[in-house]
């Protein structure tokens, strides 16, 4: 059991324990226990280093580096962020978003479903574009499903039955650390009682990551070789390997996959960095081909904790898991391609750190054009430092109740455990809706 106790807490504290769901990543591990006293969090057990950063103000994987909590609403006055009242912040933000002709609501993959619903409504009211933070990762997957069909299984079934696991462009130890022990590799499922001994595990990546230490087969490819490798595997599986030189590991990987009785391919962001659409197309085709003989699941390894909830909402409300643009002249337009920031004239960032993910030149271009940014965040980050208005928010699943969808699309209720002075994302979005 991994037990974390922040510095400053001495000896054993007599407090009751509560079960809590971790919002560190899309795993939504529900086997964490927290100890609290006097409205403060004292201990968290079973938590990974990533999840830890959700409960305590430390940086991801660096529990000794503190993150600064935003303590009050901030507004940029004379070029500097200064504390202002909640009402003033709301007024300022409403003015920015209300005046904008092409507003963008960005992120939402790291916030709860109720907040996502409010954001979608706000996007409708503002005639804004709403862009999920991980659109570049998920859109090629849905494109692939549309083309090759679907064989889907929740993590419960994968944990019980999958005997062949392939990670493609994914390093779960970094993106969702406990995935391996709870669902995919070391988990002891109904028919995989010996954990990793009952499974065959392989990985394909550009770099030799930590995953290689427990994989039975690790194939390291050069950038641009993924498609070649995938086509080679298909040819081997069909019994007609091409005449040219194959990528190293092709034959062994084909053999590995062909032995599966229940297989799953978890792909991560690495699969979409280079020719993402084509790679996912081939992965989908491969899974469909393997699925003709036995169950074979293609599964996106979403690292943001409620990415599943956002796409679920888009499916439910709009019918398409893409970025909706309510400001398009011809009516609602949805797009699978990440938006062009050139035409955006105001941005509302919720549940994401936009400037962390944006390429440097795009970020600089936004700042050069003085595009006003309104951000909602519990902690200071790159985006808050570039914002005109910053709202501090309660931590979802600790200071605010919410609903979130696990990466396999199963919803879970996140409880409010600690009192807080800060409103939740959802409350601020609803207030913004009234104010705009």
């Amino acid at each position: 059991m991994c037990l974390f106790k922040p510095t400053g807490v001495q000896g054993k504290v007599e407090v009751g324990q509560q079960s809590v769901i971790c919002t560190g990543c899309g795993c939504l591990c529900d086997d964490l226990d927290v100890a609290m006293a006097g409205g403060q969090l004292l201990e968290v057990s079973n938590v990974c280093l990533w999840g830890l950063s959700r409960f305590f103000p430390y940086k991801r994987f660096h529990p000794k580096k503190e993150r600064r909590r935003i303590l009050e609403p901030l507004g940029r006055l004379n070029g500097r962020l200064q504390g202002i009242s909640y009402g003033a912040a709301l007024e300022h933000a409403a003015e920015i978003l209300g005046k904008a002709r092409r507003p963008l609501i960005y992120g939402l993959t790291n916030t709860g479903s109720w907040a996502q619903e409010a954001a979608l409504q706000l996007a409708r009211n503002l005639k804004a574009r709403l862009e999920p933070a991980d659109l570049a990762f998920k859109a090629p997957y849905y494109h692939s499903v549309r083309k090759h069909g679907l064989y889907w299984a929740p993590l419960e079934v994968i944990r019980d039955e999958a005997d062949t696991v392939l990670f493609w462009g994914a390093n779960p130890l970094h993106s969702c650390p406990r995935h391996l022990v709870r669902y995919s590799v070391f988990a002891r499922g109904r028919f995989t009682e010996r954990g990793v001994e009952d499974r065959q595990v392989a990985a394909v990546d550009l770099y030799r990551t930590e995953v290689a230490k427990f994989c039975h087969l690790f194939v390291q490819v050069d950038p641009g070789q993924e498609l070649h490798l995938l086509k080679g595997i298909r040819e081997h599986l069909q019994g007609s390997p091409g005449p040219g030189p194959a990528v190293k590991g092709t034959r062994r990987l084909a053999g590995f996959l062909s032995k599966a009785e229940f297989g799953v391919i978890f792909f991560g962001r690495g699969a979409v960095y280079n020719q993402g659409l084509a790679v996912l197309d081939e992965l989908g085709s491969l899974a469909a081909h393997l699925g003709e003989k036995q169950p074979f699941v293609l599964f996106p390894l979403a690292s943001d904790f409620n990415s599943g909830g956002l796409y679920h909402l888009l499916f439910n409300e709009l019918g398409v898991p893409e970025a909706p643009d309510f400001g398009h002249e011809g009516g609602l337009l949805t797009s699978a391609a990440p938006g062009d920031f050139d035409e955006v004239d105001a941005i509302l960032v919720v549940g994401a750190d936009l400037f962390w993910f944006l390429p440097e030149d795009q970020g600089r271009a936004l700042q050069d054009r003085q595009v006003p940014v309104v951000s909602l965040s519990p902690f200071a980050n790159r985006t808050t430092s570039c914002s005109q208005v910053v709202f501090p928010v309660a931590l979802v699943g600790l200071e605010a109740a919410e609903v979130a969808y696990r990466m396999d699309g199963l919803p879970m209720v996140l409880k409010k455990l600690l009192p807080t002075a800060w409103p939740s994302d959802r409350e601020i979005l609803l207030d913004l809706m009234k104010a705009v």
Partner: protein
Amino acid sequence: MNIKITGGRLYDPARGVQGATQDLFIQGDRIVAHLPHPDRVIQARDQVVAPGGIDLRGQVATYGLNFLRLWNRFPSLKELGQLYAASGYTHVHEPFLTLYTAGYVHRQLAALPLVDTSASLALNLRDLDSSLKSPGQLEELGQTIKSLQEKTRSLDLRLIEPFVRYRQSYYSHRTMEAAKTLETLTRLALECGLRFNLEAGPEVLEAPLPETRAFHLAALGRALTEERQLEQALDHLEKGGTADLGFQARNASSIANEQPVKVDFGWYHPLNLNPKTKANGALGVMRLALQYQGPGLAFSVCGPVWDPTAEFPPCFSWLWDRAARPAAWERQLPGREFSLSEWAWATRTLPARLLGLADRGHLGPGARADVALFDLPPDTPSSQWAQSLSRCHTLLKAGEVVIENFDLVQPETPKATYYRRAGAEEGPLLAELCQYRSFRPENLWVADELGGAWVGLE
């Protein structure tokens, strides 16, 4: 509000009313015998007045169903709720809720506006096979199933695969074939007061059904491909059993193209969300519906529901209008035609009874005032019934006018999700079932926040 509906032709098969012109009185959310001073009078001349419809098998919230939207822009849940209301329905029952998808299903059902909802708990017998093989454990098994039903907030029980079969060859010794399984389940049902909706496949109708009281045959459409299966289904009904038709909706196969769309729930076979329509299956359903003339047959469609206003009427057309039936069926089908009373029985009265909704499906005093009014003058030929009955003129739900003159006037009408409150005790078997899950039990069970408003039925 107190309402009088006057001049309409009432179809209330539960009370033997078959099109008689009668006034109907509503006080608050209930139907009453008489009301001296109504606040409002609704003129229903040339209209059919029937209880609100109940879709016994409305596959609208199944886990994975959202993916079908990748191929077609079928209605959102909001639109789907409106379509159900527009076609005179006030309750939708989702057939596929499993132990770990219960939260998902309920959250989807909560997003379906206007209509009340409920769901069937689909059991995976593989999880229960040890107990099924131990006669001494049947009592505990029954309690566990009731407990599961309450914790997943489901209204009834469903068996997709009435056998125990493992995909892993080394578990083959634990196999239980359908006949043996059904025999055990019958004992379980009779001893513990349970009833199972048995998803009818050809294999199910091959096995003898030992006791009709224990099973309702669900979605017969997929199963009736051979003469023998038709006879078996008829035999079940003639003995006093119940079933629902499971029409394969006309446009189901054209909706999601040819791509496979399957979701693996850990059963022996995955659930196919894009099943292919079998022509002889539809013929089998028609033969059964027209040959059988008893009270045990309810209407339902098989597969995901996309648009009740467009999908249900063609099925009814076949039933009540000989001319609408494909010419190829002419010689194979009895010449009988359904009456409006049979329609009301199959879509309202019997579904309400099967779901245990005592105050629905009829228009007697004390019933909840869920009433649908359709424009259908008495001399309308049966060839035009489908068009008239596909959209209701007026819909009242719990005494509140939701649709008036074909327009939705009350989009925010309250709705609820119904489930069975069994009051069963949690035993060690329940803990055993939970031990293989990645969820802690408190997160496996459906929390209040994931659905509602909740109504527990005893």
